[in-house]
C-alpha cells in the first residue's frame, strides 16, 4: 500500500488554527478519520491530494510532496466529496465518467468500453444516457465513485460520502468502498462504517487525540462527546 506521511503538519485559516502538529504515517489499506464538526478532518483529507497545502510541515505520498508535486499526487489519489452534485461535471452519466479519461491516450472506442464496464460495475449501465441531475442521491454518489475509480488511483479519499444518503444508499456505497483493492481513507460521521477498518484516527481541535484500532479509537471519540 502507498505511504501517506504527515510530518509536523499545521494549517491555519486566518487566525484560526485548523490543524496543529500532525505526525502520521498511513500505510494500512483501510483508514478511518473521525472527529466533530470543525475538528479538521476534512482539511486533513484534502491535504492527502494537495487540494489544501499545509501552512507548516509537509504531506507526502510515497515521498512525493503534495505541495511541490500536487499534480502527480492527484493522479494517484482519487477524491470523493460529500455532495456528489459538486463533483459531477457533465450533463449525462456516461459523459461524466468519460470526462475522467479525457486526457488519457485512449481512443474513443476504448474509452467507451471502459466507461460501459465501469457503469456496469457500479450498477449504472442502464442510466448511461440519463441526465445526471435526475439521478437519486445514492446513484449520484455511485457515479462520483465510478468517475474517480475509472482512472485507477492508488488511493481513494472519501470525505463523508454517505452523509447525504439514506441508510440503504449509505450501505450500498459502504459495500462498494469495502470491495475496493485501493487504499481507502474514509472521513465519516457514520461510525458503524469503520467496523472492518485497520486503523482509525480521531481528531479534536485540530489535533490527533486517538490513533488506534476502530474499537479503541471510537471509544475515545464517543468519550469526547460525553
Amino acid at each position, binding site marked *: 500500500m502507498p505511504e501517506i506521511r504527515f510530518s509536523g503538519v499545521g494549517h491555519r485559516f486566518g487566525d484560526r488554527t485548523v490543524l496543529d502538529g500532525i505526525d502520521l504515517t498511513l500505510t494500512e489499506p483501510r483508514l478511518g478519520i473521525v472527529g466533530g464538526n470543525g475538528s479538521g478532518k476534512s482539511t486533513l483529507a484534502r491535504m492527502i491530494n494537495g487540494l489544501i497545502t499545509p501552512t507548516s510541515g509537509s504531506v507526502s505520498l510515497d515521498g512525493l510532496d503534495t505541495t511541490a508535486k500536487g499534480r502527480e499526487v492527484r493522479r494517484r489519489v482519487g477524491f470523493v466529496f460529500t455532495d456528489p*452534485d459538486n463533483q*459531477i461535471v457533465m450533463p449525462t452519466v456516461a459523459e461524466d465518467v468519460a470526462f475522467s479519461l479525457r486526457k488519457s491516450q485512449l481512443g474513443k472506442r476504448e474509452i467507451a468500453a471502459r466507461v460501459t464496464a465501469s457503469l456496469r460495475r457500479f450498477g449504472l449501465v442502464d442510466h*448511461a444516457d440519463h441526465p445526471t441531475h435526475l439521478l437519486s442521491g445514492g446513484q449520484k454518489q455511485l457515479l462520483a465513485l465510478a468517475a474517480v475509480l475509472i482512472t485507477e488511483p492508488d488511493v481513494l479519499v472519501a470525505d463523508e460520502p454517505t452523509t447525504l444518503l439514506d441508510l440503504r444508499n449509505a450501505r450500498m456505497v459502504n459495500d462498494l468502498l469495502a470491495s475496493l483493492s485501493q487504499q481507502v481513507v474514509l472521513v465519516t460521521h457514520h461510525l458503524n462504517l469503520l467496523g472492518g477498518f485497520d486503523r482509525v484516527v480521531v481528531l479534536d481541535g485540530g489535533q490527533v487525540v486517538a490513533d488506534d484500532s476502530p474499537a479503541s479509537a471510537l471509544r475515545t471519540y464517543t468519550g469526547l462527546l460525553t
Partner: protein
Amino acid sequence: MTVIGLFHPGNSALHRLSAGWKLLGMVLAVTAVLFLREPWQLGVAAVVTAGLYAIARIPARVAAAQLWPMRWFLLLVAIFQLIFAGWQPAVMVCGSLLLTVAVAALVTVTTRVTAMLDVFNRLMQPLRRWVDPDRSGLLLALTIRCIPLMVDIVRDVSDARKARGAHFSLRAMAAPAVVRALRSADALGDALVARGVDD
C-alpha cells in the same frame, strides 16, 4: 427539469449524423424559417420538422417537452400580434418561433453534449493562440451542468423562505441563493482540480 441536456438516446440516422452537420443544418433551417412569408409555407416546414422528429424516433412526449416551456411566451407574442398586426402575422411570428425552437431541440435531443463540445473545440482551434479550446469547452459543459444545480438551489431557498413566512422578501431569496451558489462554485472548483482539470 430543464430543456438543456435532454439527450434522447437512439440509433436513428439523425443520431448517427455528426454533430457538425447537424449544427450546420440547424443554422440553415433556422435561416430558411426567417424567410417564410405565407402560412402554407410554415405548414410545409412544420410537416418537414415533424418528419425529422419521426425519423429520429423521438417520442411525442419528449418532443412536446421541448416546446412546452415556450407556451406563455408564445401566448404573449400571439396576443400582442393579434392586437397590433392581425391573425396572419401572429401565426407567422409564433409559428416561426416554435419551428426555430423545435429544430434546435431536435439537434439537442439527438446529439450528446460531448459531441457538441468536440465541434466547438474544432471551431475554436483557429483561436487557440488566444483562447484554450479545452477550457472553453469545459466552461460550456459546466454552464449546461450548472443550470439544474441553480434551479435546485433557488427552489430550496424559495421553499425555506416560504417556510419562514418571508414570501415576498427579495433579500431573503437573493442572499442565500447567491451564497449557496458561490459555495457550490467553490466546491466544484475543488472537484475539478481533484479530477485533474489542472493537469
